[in-house]
Structures are given as C-alpha cells and as structure tokens.
C-alpha cells in the first residue's frame, strides 16, 4: 500500500509533470535507460562473448557491418582486428565507462559535499584553507589534473600493481579533479542555512555539529548537488574516454569506449571505419542523453525559472 501511495505521489509531482511535458527529456531518459540496461546486463545479453579467447576466430576479423555487401548477419556492427563482435565490445565497453563514471561522480560528490559542509559551517581558517585549494584546482582544467594524478600514481606504484589498480586510480583522479564544484555550491548553501532559526535551535539544544550538518543542513544541498552530479556524470564519462584514448586510462584487458576508439583509430587509414565510428557514436549519444537529463533537472529543480 505504502509503495502504491509513493508511486501516486511521484506521478503527481511537479517534477514528473515537467518531465512528461518535454519530449526531448523523455527521449534522453529512454536512451540513458537503454544504455544502462544494455551495459548492465551486457555479460548475459551481448550477442557474443568477446573476452573469452576460445570463442574468437581470427578468420572473422575486419568484417564490415551486416548491411554492407561483405558483412555477415551475426556481426551486426562488424568485427575488430581480433574478430570480436563490435556491438558486443561496445556493450561491454559502455559498462566499464559507466561504472567508472558513476564511481568517479560518487567519489567527487562525497569529497566535495564533506569539504563544502565543513567549509561553510565551520568558517574561518578552515574555510579559507579549503577554498584556496579549490581556487588553485579551479585554475587548471580537470583533464590536466587527472593526467597528472595518473602519472604520479604510475611512477609510485610498481608496474604490475598499477595495472591491477589502474581503474581505481582513474576513478580517484577524475574524482579529485572535479570535487571543487560540489564544494563551492554546498558551501554557499551551508552558509545561508547556518544562520537560519532551525539550525540555531538545533545548536541550542546541544546537538553535535556533525549531526547538525548531516541531518539538518545536508538535505538542503541535495537538489543542486543532484544537478551537478548529473552533468558531472557526462563529464566523467567523457574524461574517462579521453584518458583511455590517450592510453593512460583503463588497462587493455578491460576496454572502455575510449579504449575501443583508440584501438579502432589504428585502423582508420586502412578503411575499417566501423571500429572507430560505432564506439564513438555510442559515447556521444550516451553523453548527450545524460547532458540533456542534467539540463532538464536543472530547470525543473529551479523554481525561479518556472
């Protein structure tokens, strides 16, 4: 009963109304859901198991897409240099891309919210120190920071260990390069909320500052954070793809969309365009869908724009 009640309230809400009213947003949501489904269940629903060496056959290599004269129906989007089905590698690659994207956003949001809350609530020297660090971080493009962290990790860790943990290094370096936005937004809201009566009251009855921050201030920042996180997800997926394309991202044993584009790029000149174009198109469509959802969320959660 309670569930049905929640559902009815959700369907009646302003948010759902504005969602239904925008066909672009619905299309973006459907696309994103499709990606989530196809990549989430990729190991079970992908047409071929591309990373099981036994099933690969080099005589299937470099097959063009199925609708071209020399294509074969079982490989809808063609095959790569190892005879792997491109559609299956895209589904598995998007899985890695999205996993890294989500993890990086979670990491950046957790770090940014914590530092923002502390900075805004405590103020003074702590605030000044955190915000100066944020200023320095902001004056460098995220991709440069991520590259640098990855480079340092590469020289600190022994080679075989680095290959094992490189996906976590990637998540941390993307996260560390994007937390500033969360911290700044959360800090600004916290500073406003801090002076309101209910926070004063919580302080008067002797609650611990950490408890006040978590239970009373935190709920106020979740809306804007959700917007930043959605757009941040698109950015994180793009950054991951870029780093992997540059060869400093995920290890070749777990190719993401960026790695696939990098591999395909080697065969661009010999005319095997499908190995680059299809993963590239998948990446762009995914990022565009997430970006459109983020735009909608920003407008829908901002009462001033209504």
């Amino acid at each position: 009963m309670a569930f049905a009640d929640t559902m009815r309230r959700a369907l009646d809400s302003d948010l759902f109304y504005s969602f239904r009213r925008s066909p672009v947003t619905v299309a973006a949501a459907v696309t994103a859901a499709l990606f989530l489904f196809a990549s989430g269940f990729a190991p079970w629903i992908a047409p071929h198991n591309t990373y099981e060496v036994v099933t690969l056959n080099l005589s299937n290599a470099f097959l063009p897409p199925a609708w071209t004269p020399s294509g074969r129906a079982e490989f809808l989007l063609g095959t790569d240099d190892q005879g792997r089905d491109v559609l299956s590698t895209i589904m598995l690659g998007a899985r890695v891309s999205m996993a890294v994207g989500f993890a990086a956003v979670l990491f950046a949001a957790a770090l940014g919210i914590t530092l923002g809350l502390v900075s805004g609530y405590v103020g003074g020297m702590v605030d000044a120190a955190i915000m100066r660090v944020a200023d320095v971080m902001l004056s460098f493009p995220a991709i440069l920071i991520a590259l640098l962290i990855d480079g340092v990790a590469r020289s600190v860790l022994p080679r075989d260990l680095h290959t094992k943990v490189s996906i976590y290094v990637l998540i941390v370096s993307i996260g560390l390069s994007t937390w500033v936005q969360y911290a700044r937004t959360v800090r600004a809201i916290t500073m406003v909320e801090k002076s309101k009566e209910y926070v004063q009251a919580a302080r008067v009855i002797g609650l611990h500052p950490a408890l006040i921050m978590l239970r009373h201030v935190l709920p106020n920042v979740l809306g804007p954070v959700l917007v930043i996180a959605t757009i941040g997800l698109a950015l994180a997926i793009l950054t991951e793809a870029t780093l992997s394309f540059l060869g400093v991202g995920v290890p070749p044993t777990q190719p993401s969309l960026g790695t696939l584009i990098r591999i395909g790029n080697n065969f661009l000149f010999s005319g095997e365009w499908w190995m680059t174009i299809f993963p590239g198109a998948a990446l762009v469509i995914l990022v565009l869908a997430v970006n459109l959802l983020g735009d909608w969320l920003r407008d829908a959660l901002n009462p001033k724009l209504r």
Partner: protein
Amino acid sequence: MAAYIVRRLLQAVLVMLTVGLIAFAMFNYVGDPVFNLVGQDATAEDRERIRVSLGLDRPFYVQYARFIGNAVQGQFGTSYRVGMKVTTLLAERLPATLELVFAAAVISLFVGVPLGVYTGIHRYGLLSRAFLTFSLVGISLPTFLIGILLILVFSVILGWLPSFGRGQVVSLGWWSTGFLTKSGLRSLVLPAVTLGLFQTTLIMRLVRAEMLEVLRTDYIKFARARGLSERTINFGHALKNTMVPVITIMGLQIGGLIAFAIITETVFQWPGMGLLFLQAIQYADIPVMSCYLILVALMFVLINLAVDLLYYAVDPRLRADRAAVAGRSV
C-alpha cells in the same frame, strides 16, 4: 587599483609556490632520485656521496628553497627517458604548441564572434537555428573524436589535408615556425580546427546571449530612434558592450586550449609539448612532468592575471563599483 594589482600579484606568486611544492614533492619523493641518477651498479658509499653532493641530506625547507631557486633559473635536470636537459626538450617543443594554440584561438575568435552576432540579430532565422544545432554538436563531441572524424573525412576519404605532423618548418633562431611554408599551413588546418571547435561554439553562444541582452537595452532603442543605421547600432554600439565577458572567457579558455592541446597533439602526432608530456606520463619521466607542470601553471597564472587587469581596463564601471564598495566599507 594599485592595492588590487598587488593583491593579485601576491596571489599569483602563492599559486606558483604551491605548484612548485607539488612539482618538488614529485621530484624528491616519487621514486629515489639518486637511484634514478646512478642506476643499480653504484655502491652504498657512492650513493651517500651523491646524496650529500645533491643536498638531499639537508632539511626539507632548504631543499625546497633550492628547488625554487633552480626553477627560477630554468634548471629542471635531465629527462629520465631521453637523457636530454628538460628545458632544452621543452623549448624545442614550445613553438609547435604555441602556434597550434594561437591558430585555434584565432579561428574561434574570428568564426565565433561573427556567428554569435548573426544568431543574436536574426534570432528566429533558419540559418541561426542551423548554427545553434551545429554548436550543440560541437559541445557534446569530445575533442579526440572531432579529430578522428576530421581525419576520416578530409584525409582518408577526400585526401585533401595531411593528418599528422607539422609539415615543413622554418627555423627563426630557436623558434621553428610552420606558418611560412605551404605544407606547414596545410598541416595546421585540421589540428587547429579540432582544437578550436569547442571554443568557437562557446564564444558563439556567449556573444549571442550577450547580444540578445544588450539589444533590449534603452540606449539601443535610443540609437534606433536617432535613425542610426542597423550596422552602426549592431557593431558600433551593441557588439562593443558584449566584449567584456568575451575577453574573460577567451582568456580563461586559452588555458584550456593549452591543456586540450595534449589531446589534439596526440590525435595528429603534432610534435608539441603536450605530446611530450603524455609520453613523460607513460614512462613516469618525473623531471619532464614537473617542468611541464610549472611551465603550464606559469602560463595559466599569467593569463589569469592579464585577464583580470584587462577586465578593469575595458570596463570603467567596474572601477567605479569597486571604489563605491570600498568607500562604504570604510
């Protein structure tokens, strides 16, 4: 104004010292610098002797001060990978990157501003909508994919333009330029467009938004009432007032251009600093990494400083506001 400049300068120095600290930490604590210098065959006494001769037995702040001193004089040691002096390596690569960034900035400015003005004036025109849709594509395509697509179309399919390298370069002293030869210019086209596309769309959208805002103001209506020609109004009166944010964003974007040049240079095998930096990362070549870091940080800080000062030079209102605020607070 003087106090403001001094404060900004102090801030810039502080940022540089912070970046220097990071570079220094990378230099000294990532791996063993002595081991990197002498290799496996040296005895323990040899290592100790070198450690003392390099000053690595001194306290942290002494070493840091020495590092900063050396950095100011342009001494960053030798590359682990190539065995050449880092500064020589970077100086060789600097012209290629700066020429690429310059070309990209020129493209984005000279394409972005006119497109922005056009779409701002003809708000509902068919062509405007086409430009805006095109700009959406420019924003959602990642840089490396734009490069690959351009190579596919213009090099592989059409065969019009070269897809890698700088072409023929002419040396002017230590500066090598690709601007003077035909093959150099032809090689520049695709990388510069790739690098500049995002900035072009950004500037176009910015100028459009500003134009829409300015065209609604009273002084534009007054200019119309005076019977001035559309051209004078649009370019003489309106465009001038959109320039302040454009300068800021453009300045900040040049920093972005230098960073994204890493990607463009990789796609097009452009022999610039970005490509060198990427190779340094892959081989954990710390001296090159820290020198690149400091150089890029210096460029960013200088650009930010210049933009801030320019901002005040361009818009007199800001100076007045600031004076008013200062007056109230006293």
